């Protein structure tokens, strides 16, 4: 310490800029979310599997020489081969085509039912939460009562009234399916509108419409997308379940639930007939769950800026 010369002891004053330069680059919410989503390998893999299945569902039945309901009495219960990639079922129908025809039904039911539920729930919940008042109180009483009824019971009853089919299934799932989202969105909107940034916008005279578009929606859309992603497997589950107990799709149309049900009947002798639809259902569920979890982590504001 002997080498401290006098020149070093000249007062220079503070240098604020020097220490303010270390801040991180700023990212918008979606950039940040996307950056974190991409890093999540499991979620990314889930997305890839899902895209592959969607493409197969669209193109596989078109490109195959077999029809999904063409029976072949000479070739029943065939094992997977070059001729029939997934084998054939009890009436000699090609399982490859049936699996992807089933995918069309199952995936679209999952997507439509979940999306409709989300939209209806978000609109009703959002309006109730934002405007509050009497309407909100009455709606919430109704919603609370309906929420207590197991949704599957209602779905089954509606299916009894409407009969089997894809459209009745979607309708039946949507009769009470929106209630969960409605409660969630109402709660979120209610919480958000009390927050200071919304108050600030109100004080500045911003119209309700702009507040909803600019302040409320961006804050819940991430969670909504995540919920949607996690609701789709639920809907696919329900379709498979209903088809399994005989309330879903009417034959000869098929869905994954029906394929699994038909396969289970021959479990002892032809296990591949259940193994293939089971594998497809499970991987789809897995993909959607991973994707949903990944999205949830990606849009979670608490995790912003972390690695």
């Amino acid at each position, binding site marked *: 310490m002997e080498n401290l010369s006098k020149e070093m002891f000249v007062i220079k004053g503070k240098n604020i800029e020097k220490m303010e330069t270390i801040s991180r680059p700023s990212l918008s919410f979606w950039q940040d979310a996307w950056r974190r989503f991409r890093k999540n390998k499991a979620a990314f893999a889930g997305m890839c599997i899902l895209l592959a299945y969607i493409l197969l569902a669209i193109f596989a039945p078109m490109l195959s020489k077999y029809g999904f309901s063409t029976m072949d009495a000479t070739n029943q219960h065939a094992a997977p081969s070059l001729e029939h990639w997934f084998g054939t079922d009890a009436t000699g129908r090609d399982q490859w085509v049936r699996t992807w025809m089933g995918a069309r039904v199952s995936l679209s039911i999952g997507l439509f039912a979940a999306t409709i539920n989300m939209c209806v729930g978000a609109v009703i919940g959002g309006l109730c939460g934002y405007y509050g008042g009497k309407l909100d109180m009455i709606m919430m009483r109704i919603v*609370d*009562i*309906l929420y*207590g*009824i*197991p949704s*599957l*019971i*209602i779905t*089954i*009853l*509606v299916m*009894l*009234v409407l*009969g089997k089919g894809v459209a009745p299934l979607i309708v039946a799932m949507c009769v009470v399916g929106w209630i969960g989202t409605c409660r969630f969105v109402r709660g979120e909107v209610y919480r958000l509108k009390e927050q200071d940034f919304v108050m600030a916008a109100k004080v500045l005279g911003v119209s309700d419409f702009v507040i909803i578009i600019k302040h409320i929606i961006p804050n819940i859309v991430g969670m909504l997308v995540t919920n949607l992603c996690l609701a789709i*497997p639920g809907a696919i*589950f329900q379709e*498979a*379940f209903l088809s*399994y*107990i*005989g*309330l879903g799709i009417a034959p000869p149309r098929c869905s994954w639930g029906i394929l*699994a*049900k038909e*396969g*289970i009947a021959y*479990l*002892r002798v032809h*296990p591949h007939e*259940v193994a293939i639809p*089971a594998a497809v*259902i*499970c*991987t789809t*569920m*897995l993909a959607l*769950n*991973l994707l949903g979890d990944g999205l949830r982590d990606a849009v979670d504001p608490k995790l912003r800026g972390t690695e």
Partner: protein
Amino acid sequence: MTKYVIKRVIAAILTLWALVTIVFFLVRLMPGEPFTNPKLTPQVIENMTKYYGFDKPLIVQYFHYLGNLLHGDFGFSMKYTNKTVNYIIGQTFPFSADLGIRALCLAISFGLILGILAARKRGTKIDFFCVIVAIIGTSIPDFIMGALLQYFFGIKWGLLPVAQYKGIEYTILPATALAFYTLASVSRIMRASMLEVTTQDYIKTARSKGLTEARITVRHQIRNAIMPVMTILGPTVASVLTGTFVIESIFAIPGMGKYYVESVNNNDYSMILGMTLFYGIFLVTANLIVDILYGVADPRVRIGKR
């Protein structure tokens, strides 16, 4: 606490009323066919007229129907003239209840254990294993789980009985198949909740008191972390119950679920309606019990402040 219970009971009664009313009007909306099917025997038609009171005005029908339910009469079968829904429930529900309770106990106990273990050993192989089990568990529908277990343990390796329900060894496969999904979701929620609680200030307070790790985990962490799990118990009971539909038909268990699926396939409408209504009432009641239990467990709910 009394206030809370009364509130929940009133809500449950309203829900039940909504449910039965919805069912009533849905029946009236049904396409004519199932009830005017020419194949029906005169005996069935007589039963039906008596039970539903189709010949009277709508409002009378409604109260007649409510009266039936209040007497605990869920209707009759269109297929088998000599059987009533109550008779079938009496015959089959004990099996379903037995299976359901076994599955619930299995799912909740193992789910909690896995969740706690994963959170305590965060970032280790044990944690990884628990997380994998949870993800796989929530990705396999119960009928597929049932088929898989039946194929491997019953048929291929012959370790356990394939079907029927005659003793403890018969219950293992169906109960496991039924429990797996719930087990996975319970463990997931418990893990997340445990991790959340670990960062709470009161855990630090507990440590500053010089308590042992074991006591902190049990009295402070688990006690608080279990709350979110309690909130999903209602839906869990429902999912286990509906799971019995398929599990019972796969394992040929003479329970209510198997009978339900048969009724669906036989187009036995009045039977389906009666049983659905019974399920609905059962679940609403189960939810009520769960709600009250939740109140007992969480003092904040009990007092009414949250």
